[in-house]
């Protein structure tokens, strides 16, 4: 643990731990971080509410992860690749995914899977850790093409037990691929606590095995995450290879809306920690301390965010019904005869409704 100290720029009270970035972290920049964190938290609350009302399917909440997701996403360059999991829609939205398509995704619609036409944001990977080699491959391809684009892969603590975690990091390290492996360690893989997941003290130390830098940051400190990811991306673009970043966070809520965390952990204790460690609260305290905080400003952005989210929900709910043809038409570039025949057979029976 002492070899991998928790990197912080501000502490739980919002006060400086490390003033190296004070100048760069001016009012505009700090407000940008807060805006995005508030935006994805508001979106998340809407997601849970829509699920409770039966207007979308199972939803994956991420409160507690906002600092990690916003800090990392805002470190990326325009043409970088993002390979998220199903809990990283906060990062996807911050990088540029479309809100209405994100809601469509939670509503069981394929249209929601590819969140952006402008940005290289891949669909959330459901199979754990399988997208780490994808990030490696995309990064190697960028080098092959002679660009300086990089890739970032998001994954949780449980993913580090999967073979694809090892294979992705190993190959990336051998080929010095410009990729950042961004771990959000929230201490639980659904119900399994980290001490039953692994015998190592930290995730960051696993980097030693691959001969790459391993960095452990306070994932509730948006600044610390941001600069750790930024520096890793700079190293990557210089041809110095991948970095493993462990952002330590707390998942305040359930694994999904279908999960009851009180079955496997002391939720009261988590709620107490939330009061003390909430990344939004921490940034608010920092802004107050630096004189950047204004209730009027927050009310304004909150109101804009609500309007944006409500209009995305309207767009999601007014989307034309799912097209049965989509199921058949995108398996291959041209449907094979078996698929054409099946599509025709379903058509003869009047579709699926």
């Amino acid at each position, binding site marked *: 643990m002492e070899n991998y100290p928790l990197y912080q720029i501000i502490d739980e009270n919002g006060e400086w731990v490390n003033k190296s970035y004070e100048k760069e972290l001016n009012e505009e920049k700090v407000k940008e971080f807060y805006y995005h964190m508030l935006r994805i938290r508001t979106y998340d609350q809407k997601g849970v509410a829509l699920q409770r009302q039966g207007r979308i399917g199972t939803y994956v909440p991420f409160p507690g992860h906002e600092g990690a997701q916003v800090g990392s996403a805002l470190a990326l360059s325009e043409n970088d690749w993002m390979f998220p999991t199903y809990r990283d829609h906060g990062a996807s939205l911050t990088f540029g995914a479309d809100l209405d398509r994100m809601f469509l995704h939670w509503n069981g619609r394929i249209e929601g899977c590819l969140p952006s036409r402008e940005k290289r944001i891949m*669909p959330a990977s459901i199979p754990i850790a*399988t997208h*780490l080699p994808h990030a490696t491959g995309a990064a190697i391809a960028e080098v092959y093409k002679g660009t300086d684009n990089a890739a970032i892969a998001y994954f949780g603590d449980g993913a580090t037990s999967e*073979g694809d975690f090892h*294979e992705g990091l*190993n190959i990336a390290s051998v080929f010095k691929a410009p990729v950042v492996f961004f771990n959000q360690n929230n201490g639980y893989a659904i119900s399994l606590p980290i001490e039953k997941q692994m015998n190592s003290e930290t995730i960051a130390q696993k980097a030693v095995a691959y001969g790459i830098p391993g960095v452990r940051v306070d994932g509730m400190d948006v600044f610390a995450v941001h600069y750790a990811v930024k520096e890793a991306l700079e190293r990557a673009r210089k041809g110095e290879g991948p970095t493993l970043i462990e952002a330590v966070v707390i998942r305040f809520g359930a694994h999904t809306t279908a999960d009851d965390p009180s079955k496997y952990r002391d939720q009261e204790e988590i709620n107490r920690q939330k009061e003390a460690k909430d990344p939004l609260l921490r940034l608010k305290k920092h802004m107050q301390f630096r004189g950047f905080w204004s209730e009027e400003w927050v009310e304004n952005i909150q109101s804009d965010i609500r309007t944006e989210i409500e209009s995305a929900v309207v767009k999601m709910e007014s989307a034309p019904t799912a097209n049965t043809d989509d199921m058949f038409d995108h*398996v*291959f570039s041209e449907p*094979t*005869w078996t698929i054409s025949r099946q599509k025709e057979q379903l058509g003869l029976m009047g579709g699926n409704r």
Partner: protein
Amino acid sequence: MVMSNEIIKTKAPSQSLTMIQAITDGLKTMLESDQNTIIMGEDVGRNGGVFRATDGLQETFGEKRVIDTPLSEAGFVGTAVGMALAGLKPVVEIQFLGFIYPAFEQIATHVTRMRMRTLGQYHIPMVIRAPYGAGVRSPEIHSESVEALFTHLPGIKVVCPSNAYDAKGLLLAAVEDPDPVLFLEPMRLYRGSRVDVPTGDYRVEIGKGTRVQEGNDVTIFAWGAMIPLVMKASEQMKKDGISCDVIDLRSLYPLDRDLIADSVQKTGRVVIVHEGHETGGLGSEIISIINDTSFLYLKAPVEKVTGFDVPVPLFSLENDYLPSTERVETAIRKAYTF
């Protein structure tokens, strides 16, 4: 040796090649014609592959295009997915088909699904090459013929050539295909014989089988290393006055429904031969196509000669496992005399 119809038609300059040489030649043609194509796999670089399929290619095209990967099937197939997303066209070599299992998750959850998941915005133009089948006295897990695991998976095509001409033509068609293709290479036929193979670029269409011998009494469906075997059996049958219509299906997904129907409707009697396990094997799928297209033409129940529902045994028993000419001849007689 068996020759495809196309060979007779072709007038292009050609050379006499074994199947493994034709595969190398196909890969070379690919690397020459498209800068975005790359080869990846275990020992494919300096060593030229354990079967020498990539012999000399790294020397000619460099380490950036012919890439030795760590021993990591899930890792390099997954890496190839990322490369494909970013616009490259990776051709990966799985050293033996039995080594594909670690990569199965990548194939089943990403390679085959990315196009549908993104409504066509992204696709995976990947070719996965794998030496396939038993009969060369290999260790355990080196003799698998589990094509049916992959023909069952939506989103990937599966092909299996039986000769050098088809090998190169199908390989180049697989490379050109915008979707994933599993390219099975019957190890037993790598160096068994030579045929004339055009020196340039040509395609053997995926989805089309070929009639390797015209006959009227009994249809035989087979592919890969079973083709020389069924040809031998059908020669024997000629002595008994039975003529066999021998079809090399060579494209296992999609199957050539029209050619299957065409032959069955001519003969009314069918023997299907494959070295993969019987239950859930492709033989059952072919019977299903016959059922759909040609039920009233049948004069006898369809016979199957296949590998058994047992793991492919160590090589002291592999000839007991594999279909033999005797088993094929017995099945032909049974279908003929029903």
